[in-house]
């Protein structure tokens, strides 16, 4: 089943002469983990922001579970897209505890369900004892786990991860990579992960796309690679 379908997506920054994303077409099936590789400034993070609804494309359509979220006539707000996102610097709310951060996205759920989901998420990321801590009381790796738990808690249809390892040191990175894949596979979530490190893709993703050498994504320029992990 197609979870994400992108067709002819084009985006340009206000002052830029050329579009950073040009006529990009791509799709994903349920449960797939796709890595997006490319150099800095090639539009990797912009692609995630366009899917999430944090930027407006100049052209093209995005469909999530077959329902259009942006086309020439329509723009669905980020909060109504059912998309989860793990930001590069995690963006955990500094004035909320771990518990409140995770509960934040559980809007239309009753109290018991919220409690249950919180427990489930904390168990998933092995952080059961940390629910009362504030983000600044956690290490980089712990913050990343909580950011992942927060994004997964509302059961989004697609999970977007923007350079999730960029704030971690090399040793931690290696141990967390394998754990992340197992968490993602356990939940069965469809996930796009932006990274500039091929090792991330090799360890976690089912397949990957790479930005072209001219730092432009195009349907012609994309390189598809099937990984056997």
């Amino acid at each position, binding site marked *: 089943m197609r979870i994400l379908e992108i067709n002819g997506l084009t985006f340009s920054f*206000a002052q830029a002469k050329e579009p950073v994303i040009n006529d990009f077409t791509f799709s994903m099936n349920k449960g797939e983990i796709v890595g997006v590789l490319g150099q800095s400034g090639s539009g990797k993070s912009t692609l995630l922001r366009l899917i*999430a*609804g*944090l930027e*407006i*494309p*100049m*052209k093209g359509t995005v469909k999530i579970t077959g329902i259009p979220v*942006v086309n*020439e006539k*329509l*723009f669905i*707000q*980020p*909060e*109504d*897209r059912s*998309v*989860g*996102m793990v*930001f590069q*610097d995690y*963006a*955990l*709310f*500094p*004035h909320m505890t771990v518990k409140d951060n995770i509960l*934040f*996205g559980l*809007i239309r759920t009753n109290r018991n369900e919220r409690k249950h989901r919180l427990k489930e998420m904390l168990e998933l990321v092995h952080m059961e004892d940390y629910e009362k801590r504030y983000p600044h009381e956690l290490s980089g790796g712990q913050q990343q786990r909580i950011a992942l738990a*927060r*994004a997964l808690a*509302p059961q989004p249809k697609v999970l977007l991860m923007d350079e999730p390892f960029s704030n971690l040191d090399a040793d931690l990175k290696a141990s967390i990579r394998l754990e992340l894949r197992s968490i993602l596979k356990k939940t069965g979530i469809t996930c796009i992960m932006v990274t500039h490190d091929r090792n991330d893709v090799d360890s976690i993703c089912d397949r990957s796309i790479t930005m072209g050498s001219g730092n432009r994504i195009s349907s012609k320029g994309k390189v598809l690679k099937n990984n056997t992990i």
Partner: protein
Amino acid sequence: MKLEMVKRYAQKELNGWWIVSIIGATVILLPILYVFLEIFQQPNENWFQIRVYLLKNYVTNTVILVLITGILTIFLGVTLAWLTSAYDFPLRNFFRWGLILPLAIPPYIASYTYRTMLSYTGVVQSTLRNQFDYQINPELFNFSSLRGATFIFTLFLYPYVYIIARAFLENQSSSYIESARLLGRKPTAVFIKVVLPLARPAIIGGAGLVTFEVLSDYGVTSYFGIHTITTAIFQTWFGMYDVDTAMRLAAWLMFIIIGVFILERLLRQRKRYHLSNKTKPLVPIKLKGLPRAGAFSYCFIVLSLGFIIPLFQLIAWAGMTFNKVWDIFFFTLLKQTISIAAISTLIIILVSTVIANVCRSKWAFSYMLSKVITSGYSIPGAIIAIGVLAVFIKLDKTLAPFYSYVGLGKAPLILSMSIVMLIVGYIIRFMATGYNAVEVGFEKIGTKYTEASRVLGHGVTKTFFRVELPLIKGALFSGFILTFVEICKELPLVLLLRPFNFETLATKTFQYAKDEMIHEAAIPSLMIIGISTMSVIVFHLIDKRVKK
């Protein structure tokens, strides 16, 4: 294609927050536009009289005041900033923030304090006469002149230059100054050849603020009997009841303001003043011997003249009139001042928050909106007051049939006689103070938390209350304090827009001084100084937090 993009932008961005912002911007822009449009109206006879006989004098006095005050405040502000940031001497840390204190004394209070202190019966001349048997030439202390006004403006407005120049020198100049020192240049040469040219944008920025304050002033100039464009606006309104001519004068003043703006931009143009990206604090050099005593004395004299002496004089006068002034009427005055300032400040912070939030989007329209909303601060209170007055009179005229329908009389002035007019005036004039503080708060938190909240399913309003508001409450608080203080101090606007018999601490102080009841003016003055000191403390705390 473009239209399609605009449509998509509108779908993403347009919401209730935008509507509130656009209404706010319209309310702010309308009176200012009204003043501008007066230029295209047919002038009346009063205007011809003023233009032929008086305008030249008004403009000359205004320009002289601005120029001399500008030069002197730059001198005082920059030398003090240089001393306190580049050198170490006794009480330097105290002077660093203490030299901001003169800003807590509004110039109109300083003007009557100094004039009375230096008068024939004042403390200076009578002490010299009685204790030292020394008769001084009274002409030397003649304060009702341009000389007196420039003295007051310089001494009580230099902190604007000082604050900006000091921030620049302390944080951004160290590598250049250290290079110059290593290249063998002496301190004076370093100051003239390196510090002054580098600090030019900071100096111009500070001097710009001083200029706007001088152009806005009514208290000092009217007390000293100096005719400027601002005092002329008051005379045509209160003396001739001629709103049209007052508006025409206001439009002229507005052109001078625009001229100052253009000049400021031109003076900064084309040159780059800052190449180094690293900000490293300047390490002060320890002074010894005569320079050490000189630096200390210079700072001490300025602080004494600008804060300690007038403060002690006011305390002495307050002691003499305490029983007379400190009565039930005074509490009504205090209550009126605090409640109107609090109401206006609350509205300002509310509107600022809505608009600053909207202006975080990268839309070009939001940039324009932020410029419109903050335009009031550089426009003198008198211009805003005249614009607001004209708009409210027009509103009353438009609503006259409605008034008569509900039985309020034939053509009553309901809105233009109400407190609403004053509140609107305050909002337009001081929106920038609140807005800038709120904007800094939003800039500090960036957009990541907002985006995280939106992706987690919360809309704009819920995101604001649950995520942004708790994170920017510190900025809202400092914005509230700074705006509240400015409103409590404001004089020209309230003199023009207050309803009949409505007094604030500022108007009462001014009234006492005008009636030569100088001693009685001391208690409300001390109240205003006390309130103003709050903003100095907020400045100091913000500075301390930034340094941490």
